[in-house]
């Protein structure tokens, strides 16, 4: 039986890994991996096309897979290939997520229970959508939910259209099937075309037909240069790291100024033609050639770009998230049955999940060349990581499952938050100039974020105290004392890190803005956490609050930390507000209410507590009242 428990847990863990690491079924024979590693410059950074495909899809569909009309699930990069190379097919894929299609009032669009729509589904409604869009308030903050949905669809369609035009001009099948010919006839027409233009301007005889063709090319590519979304064409070598790459339209126009056409242009044309004809060998060879060229031109970047693609497909945070669920369940069951085996198993899975979480964090650091926390998304990932780290230590010392359960809970919740923050696109963005300091990012930001981790873990432990104490009947004095010690220890950590982090922030501010302290919202938020910690510690040392009061303070710490972390960004004032969405506001309110409920729960009079611990406390309190009543003085 004992062994069976371990085997079951192991099987579950393997299942999680299996789901994630399963090699993508690719019977087509196209070497998708090498295509997905082709480079593109986005947001100041070189990354693989795979990342672009994923981020675009996240924005459009809020997920990283596409269902084709015949029910097959496509990888983001496969969808991207169809979008750019076989657009007629991609237009039938349901990639536009519309949360409330019925509310749009577009006749014939909404289907029962369907939240995903294809480009072709939306096509008949373009005119109406555009009309609705033009009437919206230009200030996004003032838009209603309905308006926001209209805006999202319009922005999504625009993005779809622009990404589609990224690798080459788009047209009917005839055009896409003969891109190489088009480029050849264009480049050969540039010389004579310019000549004809000069002649026309000088009033001499010229070949009107040739000029017309040349001008048509020019107009078309000019439009393309404005539409094409991605900068896929690197400048000719040697390339400076800060040099701008060009989009396909700009590169084609450059030929008119006497620049040679980049081999990447022909490469992408070749890929498209091969893909459309189903010539796998030709496609794989061309992709390989392009890759070799990239390796030769960017020897320093190739490893990073390759690793980013691998990182994308591994999805360590998703794996960790699923493991956290297993841990939480295992610990909960362990309190009812098989405490030793399940407790042990939970601990080791927690260690494993922590390693994977760490791997994900380290990968992001390598790809970005930055300390772990650079934006709101990465702070969420890091808060979870820190809480799990503390939880591993707690569990190592106490071995009662509480640390593991609460750490996995915080880890899971923060990764969910991170997952939702990732919907806005690239999470590995470049840092604005004032933040561009690895030293301060590595110290101030990391320390303060670790402070958040500790405060949240302490809050989770306090909630756990309330839930078990009030509802669970097995919760006894010893467990309560252990928990109280844990909360105390973690809050000590949290206060220390918040204080040191706040102080480091002050020093950074003094270095960059000329004042140690400026009462900026984010600074104030950090200070509030420190004060919260100080209140807890002084209340404990002074015996001002006892068990329940201290736990309530620890839960209040959750609210303060959430305010400092997200709330201050919502205010949109100050030097620290680096952008955030408004839906965050409602989540914050919901979180606040839930925490107030827990505080109320913890503060319930002892007579409502069902646990052994609570009943004992209740009796003691009654006795005290009796004694006080019987006191003859």
């Amino acid at each position, binding site marked *: 039986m004992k062994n069976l428990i371990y085997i079951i847990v192991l099987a579950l863990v393997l299942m999680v890994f299996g789901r994630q690491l399963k090699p993508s079924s690719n019977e087509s024979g196209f070497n998708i991996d090498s295509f997905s590693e082709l480079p593109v410059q986005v*947001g100041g950074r070189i990354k693989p096309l795979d990342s672009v495909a994923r981020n675009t899809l996240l924005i459009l569909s809020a997920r990283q897979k596409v269902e084709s009309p015949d029910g097959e699930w496509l990888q983001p990069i496969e969808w991207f290939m169809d979008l750019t190379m076989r657009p007629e097919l991609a237009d039938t894929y349901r990639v536009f997520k519309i949360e409330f299609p019925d509310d749009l009032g577009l006749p014939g669009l909404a289907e029962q229970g369907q939240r995903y729509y294809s480009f072709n589904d939306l096509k008949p409604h373009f005119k109406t959508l555009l009309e609705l869009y033009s009437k919206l308030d230009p200030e996004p903050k003032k838009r209603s939910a309905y308006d926001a949905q209209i805006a999202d669809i319009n922005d999504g369609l625009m993005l779809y259209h622009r990404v589609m035009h990224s690798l080459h001009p788009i047209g009917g099948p005839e055009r896409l099937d003969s891109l190489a010919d088009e480029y050849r006839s264009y480049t050969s027409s540039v010389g004579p075309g310019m000549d004809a233009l000069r002649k026309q301007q000088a009033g001499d005889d010229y070949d009107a037909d040739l000029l017309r063709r040349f001008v048509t090319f020019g107009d078309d590519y000019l439009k393309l240069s404005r539409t094409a979304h991605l900068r896929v064409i690197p400048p000719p070598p040697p390339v400076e790291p800060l040099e701008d790459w060009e989009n396909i339209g700009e590169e084609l126009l450059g030929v008119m100024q006497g620049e040679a056409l980049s081999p990447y242009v022909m490469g992408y044309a070749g890929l498209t033609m091969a893909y459309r004809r189903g010539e796998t060998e030709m496609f794989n060879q061309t992709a390989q050639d392009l890759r070799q060229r990239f390796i030769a031109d960017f020897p320093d970047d190739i490893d990073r770009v390759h690793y980013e693609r691998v990182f994308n497909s591994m999805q360590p945070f998703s794996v960790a998230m699923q493991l956290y669920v297993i841990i939480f369940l295992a610990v909960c069951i362990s309190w009812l049955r098989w405490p030793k085996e399940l407790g042990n198993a939970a601990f080791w899975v927690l260690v494993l999940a922590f390693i994977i979480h760490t791997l994900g964090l380290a990968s992001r650091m390598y790809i970005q060349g930055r300390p772990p926390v650079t934006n709101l998304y990465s702070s969420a990932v890091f808060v979870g990581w820190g809480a799990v780290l503390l939880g591993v230590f707690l569990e190592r010392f106490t071995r009662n499952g509480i640390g593991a359960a609460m750490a996995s809970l915080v880890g899971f919740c923060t990764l969910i938050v991170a997952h939702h923050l990732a919907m806005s696109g690239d999470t590995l963005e470049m840092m604005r100039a004032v933040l561009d300091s690895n030293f301060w990012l590595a110290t101030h930001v990391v320390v303060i974020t670790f402070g958040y981790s500790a405060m949240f873990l302490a809050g989770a432990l306090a909630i756990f105290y309330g839930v078990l104490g009030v509802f669970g009947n097995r919760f006894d004095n010893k467990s309560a004392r252990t928990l109280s010690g844990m909360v105390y220890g973690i809050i000590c950590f949290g206060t220390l890190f918040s204080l040191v982090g706040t102080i480091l922030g002050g020093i950074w501010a003094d270095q960059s803005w000329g*004042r140690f*302290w*400026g009462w*900026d919202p984010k600074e104030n938020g950090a200070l509030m956490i420190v004060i919260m910690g100080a*209140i807890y510690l*002084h209340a404990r*040392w*002074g015996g001002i609050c006892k068990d329940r009061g201290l736990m309530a303070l620890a839960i209040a710490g959750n609210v303060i930390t959430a305010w400092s972390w997200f709330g*201050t960004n919502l205010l949109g004032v100050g030097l620290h507000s680096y952008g955030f969405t408004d839906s965050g506001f409602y989540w914050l309110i919901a979180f606040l209410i839930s925490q107030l409920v827990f505080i109320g729960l913890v503060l319930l009079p002892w007579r409502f507590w069902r646990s052994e611990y609570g009943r004992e406390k209740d009796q003691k309190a009654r006795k005290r009242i009796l004694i006080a009543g019987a006191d003859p003085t």
Partner: protein
Amino acid sequence: MNPVFKFFASLRLTVVLLAFSMMLIFFGTLDQVHYGIWHTQKLYFESFLVVWAYPEQWLHYNKLFWLHLPMPGGYLLGAMLFVNLLAAHITRFKFTFKKSGIFLIHFGLILLLVSELMTDLVSKESQMPVDEGGRSNYSQAFRSNELVFIDRSHPEHDTIHSIPTKLLKIGKQIDVPDTSLSIRTVRFFPNSNVGRAQAPVADNIADQGVAIKMNVVATPTEVTYAENEMNTETAYVEISGADGVIGTWLVSNVIDERFPPQMVSLGEQSWEVALRFTRNYYPFEIELIDFKHEKYPGTEVPFNFSSEVMVHHEDSAKDQKALIYMNHPLRYEGLTFYQASFANQDKTSIFQVVRNPGWILPYISVLLMGLGMCVQFGMHFIKFLSKRRPA
């Protein structure tokens, strides 16, 4: 023990004060949305008492407009915490090794409170814009103004007689220092709209200068506290010589170099009169050699701002070359120059100039507190570990 003393030394008071601080900071953060940081800071943190009012922009304002929350301000709380801490140390604490961590933290905290108060009281912030290739020997404070009389008669230098506009009270007579002039403020607007009237104004108070020549008039408007807006301070001043009134001028901080100078003449002598942002002059000039504003490739995201400057001091032994960029200010002669902003298509660099004699104090207090925390929690942690071992 004296009950009053006991009250001031109690931990209960500490917790209550900390709770009030938290409340103050929270509402002081919320109000920044409406009043901007600068004004909120004055209102909440540099005050003794503050009343928070339910913001007009919030839901159901017409039902909740009566909601007001009075609370102690930053100075009061700071002072109370300070007294509380001192009293506690005098009555309860005995200095032992075990308590050394707490002592260090508390001492650091006291120093931090003191340095913050000092910064509030004595630090001065101003801005210095410099054009590429140009030089500047003064900085301007954007939240205070001065009324100046400039005597340009000397070929080598100008003599400036300055009166802070804080002193301009309507009807009050002020003698301009070291001249035979005196002024009387007829009207004063802390913020105003200044513009040219289409038709001649009937009751123009001013009878001299631009107000007459260019038909400029000022109308008062509400004072702004927004982060990046300035107040257009305007005054109508009547200027008199020894023999009586010379005339009334309209002066304003938007009537600057773009306008012809407004001259006041008395006998042989003449002065240029102007109301301008308070200037601090320095015995050195900052020359901007080159300003760089780099962006990440293919984006508008700034990657670096930097200013290459040369400092020319009157005492040329103190000349210095420096590169001022993000997170790397220039500290020079008790002043600190930060890369704050830029203008004029990247041709002008704007430095924040800060004089804060106490700038080192937070660093010291921070060290003390960090050290104290490490000692305190380190001891706890070691105790925790050694308790586990034997088990």
